[in-house]
Structure formats: C-alpha cells, structure tokens
C-alpha cells in the first residue's frame, strides 16, 4: 500500500518534470525560432526563403548573400563596414557617456538627500513613458536647425538622453545595496571621499554598472526609429538603418537583409557573453553584505 503511494508520487513528480520541460521548450522555441530563421535565411537563396510551404530542413546553403553584401554597389552590395563602424562609434560613445552620467546620478540618488529628490527621480522615469517615435519630428527639427542631422554627435546625444534615465535608475539601485558603512570604513582607513568611491564602492557595485552598460549599449545598437529619421548617408547610418538598403521599389532582398542582421547580432551576442558573469552577478546583486 505504502509502496503504491510512493510510486504514485514518483509518477506525478515525473509527469510534472516532463510538463515543465515541454513548456520550457515551447517558450524557448517562440523566443529562438525567429533568430534561427534569420540565420538560416542568410545562407540560402530567396527561392528557398519565400517557398510555400516553408522549407525547414536546409538544403544547399551558401555564402552568396554575404558575398553580395560585401560586393560592389552594382551587385547588391552595401557599405557594411561603414555602417558597422558608425554603429560601433555611436553605441560605444553614447554608452560610455550614459554610464558616467548614470554613475554620478545614481550615486547621488542612492547616497545623498536633497531637495526635490523624489520629484526628479519620478521625472526621470516619466521620460521613459514617452514613446521615442513621438519625439522624432521635434528632434528632427532641432537637429536640422543645429546642423546635427546625419552626424555621429547628433545620434550620440539622442541615445545618451534615451539611456541616462535608465542607467541612473539601475545604478541607483545597485549603489543602494552597497552598505554606506563600507565607504565610511574606507574614509576612516585613510581614504578621501573620492578614493573611498573608486577603491571600495565602485568595485563592489561594478557588476551592476556593467549590466546597466549592456542595456544601454543594446538599446543604442538596436535602435531604428529615431536613427532612420536622423541619418541620411553612409556617413552616419547605423546597421539597423542599413537594413533598409535591401528594399527597393519592387523587391526586398530578404537574404541580404538577414545576412546584415546576423552581422548585427554577433557583436551583441559576443558582448553579452563576455560580461555575462557580471550580468548575472549584477542582476542577482545583494551578496555583498560581507
């Protein structure tokens, strides 16, 4: 009898585990299939991409799309290297600036009491509630008047503005979790306020800062709506905007688009992979109460 109940219980546990795996598999499929589809399509001709019913099992993969993309302008080439460089310059610069401002602001919010603190904080968060596209026209006008259309500086400024509220908010949270007596101990140990920050508080919170950096970088790297308005030429076009080069009046070069998309995904993946240790540490912060 007891045996029966035990077996029954074990059976139920196994069913539960199986169900969990199936659910997880479905969820992961929904998340991953579009990405895999893009990678797959970048390696095959338009005929296969557009085939109905869809061709799932790859056949005859080749590098034609990549070759064409890096090729001359006549045979479907696009200035990939230039776009990549633009994206890199704009994303890295805006991320670095957003992180520096985010650290200064986040630290101030976490450590100091000042007038209007919560109002400013809520104001910062409210800026995130405004859809970016709604700003595209005003931004376009401002940028046009100041001659910042089609420049790196223009986009960098926009992305800094977009990311700063978020980095401040995130980094504030991380500094809040660093006990204030660490900096006090450092001051008593002979540090100036500045040294106490860089030698103790920053190293303790740096995983959090790194994760804020990743988010800021990915936001800039993937942004399309504003970039498409504020850039014109190869001089400043970023990769997401570059994707549009594959559409012409009557056709869309899906294969080429997918190939460029893959090039866009790779650096993001590499970066995420490199800092994933920090990312996880940052997102599961709180283990600092030495």
């Amino acid at each position, binding site marked *: 009898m007891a045996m029966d109940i035990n077996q029954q219980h074990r059976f139920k546990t196994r069913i539960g585990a199986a169900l969990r795996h199936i659910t997880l598999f479905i969820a992961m499929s929904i998340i991953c299939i579009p990405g895999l589809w893009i990678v797959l399509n970048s390696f095959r001709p338009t005929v296969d991409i557009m085939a109905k019913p869809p061709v799932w099992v790859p056949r005859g993969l080749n590098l034609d799309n990549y070759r064409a993309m890096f090729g001359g302008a006549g045979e479907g080439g696009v200035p990939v290297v230039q776009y990549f460089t633009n994206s890199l310059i704009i994303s890295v610069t805006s991320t670095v600036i957003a992180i520096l401002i985010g650290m200064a602001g986040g630290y101030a919010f976490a450590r100091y009491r000042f007038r209007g603190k919560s109002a400013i904080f809520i104001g910062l968060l409210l800026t995130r509630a405004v859809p970016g596209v709604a700003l595209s026209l005003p931004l376009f006008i401002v940028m046009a008047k100041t001659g910042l259309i089609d420049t790196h500086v223009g986009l960098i400024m926009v992305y800094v503005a977009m990311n700063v509220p978020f980095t401040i908010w995130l980094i504030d949270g991380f500094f809040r979790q660093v*006990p204030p*007596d*660490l900096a*006090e*101990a*450092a*001051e*008593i*140990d*002979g*540090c*100036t306020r500045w*040294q106490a920050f860089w*030698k*103790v508080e920053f*190293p*303790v919170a740096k995983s959090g800062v790194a994760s804020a950096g990743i988010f800021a970088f990915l936001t800039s790297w993937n942004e399309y709506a504003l970039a498409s308005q504020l850039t014109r030429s190869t001089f400043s076009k970023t990769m997401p905007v570059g994707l549009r080069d594959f559409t012409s009046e009557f056709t869309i070069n899906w294969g080429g688009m997918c190939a460029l998309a893959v090039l866009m995904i790779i650096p993001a993946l590499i970066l995420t992979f490199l800092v994933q240790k920090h990312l996880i540490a940052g997102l599961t912060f709180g*283990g*600092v*109460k*030495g």
Partner: protein
Amino acid sequence: MAQVLLENVTKNYGKLEVVHGISLDIAHNEFVVLVGPSGCGKSTTLRMIAGLEEISAGDISIGGQIVNDMPPRDRNISMVFQNYALYPHMTVRENLGFSLQIAGKPPAEIARAVGEAAGILSLDDYLDRKPSELSGGQRQRVAMGRAIVRHPDVFLFDEPLSNLDAKLRAQMRVEIKKLHQKIQTTVIYVTHDQVEAMTLADRIVIMRDGNVEQQGTPNEVFERPVNTFVATFIGSPPMNLLPGRVTGGALVFARGFTVPVPHNFAELVAEGQEIVLGFRADNMMPEGHALNMDEASPAIEMAVIVSEPLGTETLLYTELAGQEVQAKMLKPRPVADGEVLTFHLDLAQCHLFDAKTQNNLR
C-alpha cells in the same frame, strides 16, 4: 598619547536635537563604554568622534588637538562597525592592509604589519579568503584586525558584538579585553548591552535620550546609581522598585507593607515624602539561603510564583506590596511554585529615590 575630550558636543538633525551637549574626558589608554537603550545617541556621539557626522555645536579634541572640522582620515582613529563593513571584494589580507596601502607604505612593511595583526587575532589561516567565506566570529576578528594594523590613537567600536550569538559574544568579549591589554590604546566602545559595559569598561557612561545620566567605574554605577533609570538599566535582573511614602519614620507601601527607613537615608527623607525603594534580587533572600545581612533585616513571608534555577543560584519571582519582585536564593534547593518562604530584605543595601525626580536621595 591620545586623550579624547568632548565639550558640550551637540548634534541636530534639522530641528531635531538628538545629542544635547555632552561632555566627556577620556584619558589615554582608558576603555570607556557608552551604554544606553537603542536610539539614545550613542552611535551619533561615536560617529562625531570619528568625524563621520558633523558636530552641530561644542568641541571635540583628540590628543590635545581640536578635530571639529578634520576629516576622519586625519584623526588617526580606527573603527569597528556593527556589520563589520569588511570590503567584500578584497581578501582578508587586503582588508587588513588597506589602510597602510592607502597611506603609501612599502609592501614589505604592509606584509609585516598584516602578519602581526593576523597573529594577534589568529587569522593566519584565513588571509586569502574573501569575507563572504568567513563565519561571523571570523569576520568580527578581521574587522578588529583592520582596526589595529595601523596603531591608531583611538579605537572606536559601535556595537561590534551584537550580530554574534550569545556564546561567541561572551568569547569575543574576553578577546577584546585581552586585545586592549596587549595594545594599550584609548578605546571608546558603544553598546546597548549592560553586561558588555560592565565586563569591558574602565569607565561606563550611561546615556539616555541624548544626555549622559551617569559615568563611573562599573562598580560605582552598580553600587551607587544616581537615579532609577541607571538602577534598572545596570545589573541583571534589574533592580526592584517599590513606590511608597515616608510615614512616621517608616516606609509604607501598598497593601500595608512597611519597613523602617534605612540608616543611610535616615537624615535624607522628610515626613510624608513620596519615595521609591530600590533593591536588587541579591538583597532579598530566603532564610537559610542568604549571605550575612548587616542590619536587622525585616522578615517577609511571600509565596514564590515562579522559580528560575540557574545552577549556583535560583531566581525567585514573588509578589511584594502588589508588585512582582525578584529575589535570589543562594545554595539553591528545588522550590515548588506557590511555596511560601520567609525572605529577608537587606536594608543596608537598599536605595531610596525621590518619586518625583527619580534621583537617588544619597
């Protein structure tokens, strides 16, 4: 040489004054304990000495130099925090050596000083661990080690033992005492635990609501509490307090309980005065289980409500003049609940407080 001097030191947070003009004179090598209930301003006072809080008024000097506006790093002090405040990203070795590294000392000297501190606190085996890999007691020792490596003029402790369990706390208490014997330095130690205060201090400073109530050696504050607050705060169990009135040369309490005015206080009370009689459990003992009592001690029949055997003695909870009081039984024997015993009250050891001011009449 570092004498620490506080003169009328006051602290305001906005309009709220939390420390009201405290004056202290702490001698070189003295071990002073600030003790008082939570929120009485002990930490604030300590942090003002450390330079972590600005002082609102008054003067603080360390080693004869006014330090009112001096940043912590220039005061040559060390502090042990309640939560230890170890640097989580550094190993124990780096934690210990941090202050010397900041001071720009050569690596060889740092290594020697760290080795010395680790030796004193038996931390040699843990030098390469991170704080997160240490037990509470070990972290506590690292925090103390970090404080001693630089041979400060003054050691500050803020409730350093309150995160440890009772056994470890007792052990660390002894270690701190030994440490003070080894490295002669002025110590200012904050705690809310009167046992820590009594066992560690050369001098106890008892604080309440931002004021100093009394200061003196552990013996002085125990034997001669200036008011009922100190009387109940210091000593365990707390002193029994019975409110009553001086009537016809005797003290009369509720339910008609009457004792003669103790000799020490005979001159100090007036007829009709409202008073509070204070006596410790040690001064009320059952017949045959007491020390010798000097004065003709009144005998009182009382039923034991609850008894707490502690091994060498037993605490007896009984009711006197309508109030629960605690008595002590030496050379204990089992006591049944409700058992009626004859107790003797040692009047020579009693205290009389004025009912209005709560101050000791002596």
